[in-house]
């Protein structure tokens, strides 16, 4: 189809350039910020223990973090390490590796947010499309309409309301965390059930808040598509209503939605911050939040890098797969 080998190579090269630029910015920014992270670290240490030979410790820490090498060497090593996903040690949870912490947090974030994003995309797109489909029964349209209201409600507000009602007032769902305190993390039905129960509220808040946006997005596109000539011909062909809805109307109307979905998936990590903080979930968002509070530079850099990579990677996937969705898009040079 529309893809040429040359295009794919160029596009992947572009992806690598974006990552390189991100790593470079990551390298430069902390060096522009006033203040010395080693001194900050020492100051933190000094609060808990007596520091005898500050100069020696400073020297040692500089060596540990490679800050004593010439700047070019620091840069080269930094870029190389970035591509190997090695951001050194966390300052906050010294001496754990940033990479390990990020990897540990990642599954929670992806598990919760990727699922809810896909869920609300699927449901919202279908519901929004049915909202304006003329084959939809009147009662169903009436039932669907209120859900668009959630487009106006921020997810964190919804989260707080849910938390208040279900966890404090009715006490039927847990207030936060990923599992009941003390539960052993293992692949047993009980543990998985426990985790899922903890996910209900944050997932419901995220999915419901997203739902309205997807509904509004598809509704507008659907109205345009319903008026298209090819839909009229589909009716004239005597196709079933269901087939026309899925293969002719929704299939075309959802093309712009897919772009939005991919971008939303790329932003999962940054979108996770508030929900993870509210529900004290040990995901990337929460990790970033705590790292910022502690000025944990290696941690912040590591997470920022993950953010950039995930957005860039989503866009790369979109660019590579979009011609399959919309054959009118071609990347072959004529």
């Amino acid at each position, binding site marked *: 189809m529309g893809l040429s080998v040359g295009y794919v190579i160029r596009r992947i090269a572009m992806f690598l350039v974006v990552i390189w630029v991100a790593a470079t910015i990551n390298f430069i920014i902390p060096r522009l910020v006033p203040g010395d992270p080693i001194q900050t670290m020492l100051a933190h240490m000094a609060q808990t223990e007596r520091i005898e030979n500050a100069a020696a410790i400073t020297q040692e820490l500089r060596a540990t973090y490679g800050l004593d090498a010439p700047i070019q060497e620091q840069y080269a090593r930094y870029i190389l390490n970035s591509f190997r996903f090695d951001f050194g040690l966390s300052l906050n949870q010294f001496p754990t590796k940033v990479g390990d912490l990020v990897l540990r947090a990642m599954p929670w974030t992806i598990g919760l947010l990727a699922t809810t994003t896909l869920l609300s995309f699927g449901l919202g797109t279908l519901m929004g499309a049915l909202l304006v489909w003329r084959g939809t029964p009147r009662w169903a349209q009436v039932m669907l309409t209120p859900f668009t209201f959630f487009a106006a409600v921020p997810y964190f507000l919804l989260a707080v309301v849910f938390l208040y009602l279900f966890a404090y007032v009715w006490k039927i769902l847990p207030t936060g965390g990923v599992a009941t305190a003390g539960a052993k993390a293992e692949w047993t039905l009980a543990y998985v059930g426990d985790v899922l129960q903890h996910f209900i509220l944050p997932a419901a808040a995220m999915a419901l808040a997203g739902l309205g946006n997807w509904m509004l997005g598809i509704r507008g596109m659907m109205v345009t598509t319903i008026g298209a000539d090819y839909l*009229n011909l589909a009716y*004239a*062909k005597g*196709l*079933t209503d269901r087939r026309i809805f899925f*293969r002719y109307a929704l299939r075309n109307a959802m093309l712009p939605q897919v772009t939005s979905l991919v971008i939303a998936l790329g932003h999962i990590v940054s979108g996770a911050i508030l929900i993870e903080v509210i529900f004290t979930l040990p995901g990337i968002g929460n990790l970033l939040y705590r790292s910022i509070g502690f000025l944990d530079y290696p941690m912040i850099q590591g997470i920022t890098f993950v953010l950039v990579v995930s957005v860039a990677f989503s866009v790369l996937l979109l660019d590579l797969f979009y011609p399959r969705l919309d054959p009118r898009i071609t990347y072959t040079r004529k």
Partner: protein
Amino acid sequence: MNTDAVLRINNLHVHYQTPQGAVKAVDEVNLFVGRGERFGFVGESGCGKTTTALAILQMIQYPGKIVAGEILLEGKNLVELNAEEMRRTRWREVSLIPQGAMSSLNPVMRIKDQIADAILTHEGRSARTGLNQRIEDLLVTVGLQRPVAQMFPHELSGGMKQRVCVAMAIALKPKLIIADEPTSALDVVVQRIVTQTLIEVQERIGASLILIGHDMGLQAQIVHRLAIMYGGHLVEMATVKKIFQAPQHPYTQVLIGSVPSPKTKKSPFALPGLPPALLNPPPGCVFHPRCAKALEMCRTQVPPLHEIQAAHFVACHLYR
């Protein structure tokens, strides 16, 4: 052509309910189309041609509504069918070559899938065997190459898309094909070739054809019989020969006079005034405000369609 009618429309009225009132897009239309006949349907833009075509397919969209009338397809009244019965009738018995062929194909589906859709919906799974061959054969029939089956609409030219629409329309060998200005978006050369193809395949499958258009000259070379529509009314219906040799309705006479001809060097279209507003049509004959021969009664009484000679129908008070 013989006289047994495939399609018979009796007293058809279609209104579009607008906030300002009812737009009488089709008003008291009576006609019949014979088996294997090519029936031309002409009139200026907005006179109700498409609405009539959509009424036959029971595809009038809100706020439109068939307020009265019968549409008999081989004796079966389509107006009375329920939605599911009508869906099964569409394409299998009446197919459509749409007005906007450029944009009538689904942009994200391969040509073969769009044709297969129609075939499989009506013939069921059993049609799967040999389906690809059948689709390619259809494309060849309308002068396209086999690989077109694998293509997407945007890879085709306007003429090719129109041919695909023709191939699709004959896929189920319907009794009646309605072609709504099938070539008006094409350039003149392509227009002739596509029209020629349309006639060939129509004759091959023995279907009747309603050809909607506004070009009297083009129609004259193609169809057997013509109906002239004006302001939602059918004003004259007869064989092409009669219409051109002895047009009876004053509006038809103006139309015939407007067909450019190097011999007569007539100036085209010398009709004063504007087409009628169908929201508030003039009382009496819709054409009377623009008619040079209008009588007093034309202002008050609607002239019914009347057979003034054998098989020559005119709706005009001059011939009562």
